[in-house]
């Protein structure tokens, strides 16, 4: 009769095996179901038939042993299942990944705490278990659930997601959708940066309005080419900001709702009336971001900025520590790695988190307009940098060493200024950030190194939005080319052939000794 349970087990195995083999076609098939039912039946009949063997336990003591151990086993099984189900909520984990991929960064935690203090409707992260990247993201989403009191995580398989989330879940490429009430926002590639950005977008009471001046050869936010700046607009929108164009010759004033005004590397002069508008805007506590670039001429650099204490020489910064990331690794492509550590614009930037600045212009400091104003250089080229007046020669790669008498060392390329103005309570404070490069924000370079962080930090500081300091995807990537094909094959011969061969020979020796 021991054939029956064995046959039952085999049929159950066939049922499960056939399910795994064909589940992508039609889930649980009739064949699998029939095998499962019949197998379970045979197993039950076999177990009942085998039960008569228990007649061997004839004495009272034997029966007590059987009862005690049967009860212990059932109790232990129930305990293990119970603890396991209860442990679903346990959040203790050790993240041993080198870059702590599944541990939320300080920026995200700070944002979560701010949201929790503010109260209001919580944000839901709806997680789709059957999405393509679900396995990669599950731990990260769980980390939000554990560490973010203002964020609820919801597994769409276990709890019905909001209708808006269901509508947005059109392909399995979407893994996480963030919702607040009836408003939902799909997260693109489900990294911490993108999930936190979605939380930020949904938690904003009003968008930060960022106006870009146009009409003087400024950067083109609509251009999708490598050297265009559409990525700037997309990045700002991703953060819940609202980038808009300001046709300044036609505007009598900077709009009231402007949180930040950006002058993106103008190549022509502003009209005197436009400069007057900018002066008025700043005098009432306006916020201005200026992107400059080597070789450009505009009265923004020569008139407006000097009045507010910034000096932009008509020269280019060259550095022997040029970036090897671009094909043209000439001194004109700077790697900026020296920063003022406590300034909000360069927060989180360090020697390990650098910027790539091609064709940068020096940004120096002059006289402060008023005694209470605060001016500071916050990012510098390396001590081996120097200034060149001959941009054409530098761009052609003709200047590889500093010429005799050139100004060298720690040349500022980003500067900030705070200008308390007015008598209100609290007093209005104009803020200006001048970045001596525009190319760093091009479509092809905005995501390079930590360029995006600088741009977002600057806009956020200017827009009083410091709660959402820049969050970059974890910077570390494993060495993408650890073994050459030759090394791979060499290890393969050792591990797939030589080592198993040795073990097998040992086995034959053991068998031979046993026989002997």
């Amino acid at each position, binding site marked *: 009769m*021991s054939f029956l349970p064995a046959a039952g087990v085999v049929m*159950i*195995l066939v049922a499960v*095996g056939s399910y*795994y083999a064909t589940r992508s076609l039609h889930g*649980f098939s009739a064949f699998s179901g029939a095998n499962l039912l019949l197998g379970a039946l045979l197993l039950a009949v076999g177990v009942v038939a085998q039960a008569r063997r228990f007649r061997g*336990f004839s004495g009272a003591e*034997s029966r007590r*042993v059987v009862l005690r*151990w049967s009860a*212990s*086993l059932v109790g*232990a099984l129930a305990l*293990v*299942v119970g*603890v*396991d*189900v209860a442990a*679903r909520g*346990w959040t*203790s*984990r*050790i993240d*041993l*990944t*080198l870059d702590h*991929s*599944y541990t939320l960064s300080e920026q995200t935690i700070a944002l979560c705490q701010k949201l929790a203090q503010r109260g209001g409707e919580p944000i839901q992260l709806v997680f789709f278990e059957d999405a393509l990247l679900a*396995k*990669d993201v599950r*731990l990260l989403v769980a980390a939000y659930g554990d560490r973010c009191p203002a964020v609820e995580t919801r597994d769409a398989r*276990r709890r019905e997601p909001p209708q808006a989330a269901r509508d947005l879940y059109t392909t399995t490429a979407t893994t996480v959708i963030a919702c607040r009430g009836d408003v939902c926002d799909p997260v693109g*590639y489900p990294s911490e940066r993108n999930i936190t950005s979605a939380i930020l977008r949904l938690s904003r009471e009003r968008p930060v309005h960022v106006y870009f001046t146009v009409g003087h050869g400024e950067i083109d936010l609509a251009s999708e080419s490598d050297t265009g700046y559409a990525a700037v607009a997309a990045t700002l929108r991703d953060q819940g900001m609202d980038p808009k164009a300001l046709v300044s010759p036609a505007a009598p004033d900077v709009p009231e709702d402007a949180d930040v005004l950006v002058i993106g590397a103008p190549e022509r002069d502003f009209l005197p009336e436009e400069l007057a508008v900018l002066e008025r805007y700043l005098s009432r506590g306006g916020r201005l971001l200026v992107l400059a670039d080597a070789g450009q001429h505009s009265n923004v650099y020569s008139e407006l900025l000097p009045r507010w204490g910034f000096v932009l020489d008509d020269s280019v910064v060259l550095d022997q520590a040029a970036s090897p990331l671009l*094909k043209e690794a000439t001194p004109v492509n700077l790697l900026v790695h020296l920063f003022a550590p406590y300034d909000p614009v360069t927060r989180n930037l360090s020697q390990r988190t650098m910027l790539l600045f091609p064709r940068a212009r020096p940004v120096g400091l002059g006289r402060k307009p008023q005694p209470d104003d605060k001016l500071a250089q916050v990012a510098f080229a390396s001590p081996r940098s120097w200034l060149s007046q001959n941009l054409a020669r530098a761009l052609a790669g003709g200047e590889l060493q500093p010429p005799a008498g050139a100004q060298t060392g720690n040349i500022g390329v980003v500067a900030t200024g705070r200008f308390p103005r007015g008598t209100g309570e609290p007093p209005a404070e104009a803020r200006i950030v001048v970045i001596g490069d525009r190319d760093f924000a091009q479509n*092809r370079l905005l*995501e*390079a190194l930590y360029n995006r962080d600088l741009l977002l930090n600057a806009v956020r500081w200017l827009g009083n939005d410091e709660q959402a300091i820049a969050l970059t995807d974890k910077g570390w990537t*494993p*060495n*993408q*080319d*650890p*073994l050459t*094909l030759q090394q*791979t094959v060499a*290890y*393969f011969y*050792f*591990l*797939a*052939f030589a*080592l*198993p061969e040795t*073990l*097998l020979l040992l*086995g*034959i020796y*053991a*068998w031979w000794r*046993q026989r002997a």
Partner: protein
Amino acid sequence: MIRRLWALSRKELRQLFASPIAYVVLTVYVALTGIYFFQHLVSYNQLLFVYQSEGLTAGGFDQGTVPSQINVLNEVFVPSADDFGLFLLVVLPLVTMRVFAEERANGTDELLLTCGLRPYEVALAKHGVTYFFVLLLLLGSAIYPAVVVLRAGLGLEHLVALYSGQLLYGCAVASLGLACSSFTSSQIVAAVLGYAIPFVLLDFAWLSNTVSESVAAVLREVALLSHYGSFARGVIELRHVVYFAGIAGLGWLASVASLELARAR
């Protein structure tokens, strides 16, 4: 007690390595893991070649740039860890099937239980030696991943997480196999049950459409696979450690119960 356990463990070790089955299992496991790891590495190298070729910019800021998502962790380690888990499921019952069943078939279990050893000590020694064998299996298969971890700069901590998971998972599977072996005198039956139970426990996705959502949720928590994945990603979660330790403990308790029943009979 320690001396008794040590003596019994030495005897078990001698018995294990006196038979060719341990070497065959080691050979099969090391060869399988080596071949599959190699396959993943070769596929990864091919992928790198495609991305690094001149004609493809792949979204980078210069030609030939490889996206950061294409890395040795995602392309080699995570899929390899899934394979390694399945291979453990395949080879371990071959080792566990004989541990108790052979003693029972030869009648030496009675000898063991009447020479002053308590059933839980016998079970502890046999389980301990089998876990040690699991460790040996994993060490044999760890050479390739360790080389890649060091060369890729993943950090040894990641390797520790990966192999902690494999060890816990292997011990849990081995423990189930040992429990099956302890209830029968037939090594074939022990092997079939040793395959059947972990295989059924592996994943209850096949039942999820036929049971209610709450039952499916419980089944998901009971399934082996749902506790295994995070280790390969470098994260050790307490609840998974508790789960595997619970399964191993349950297997040990079942072995003790079986020995107690044999003694009572």
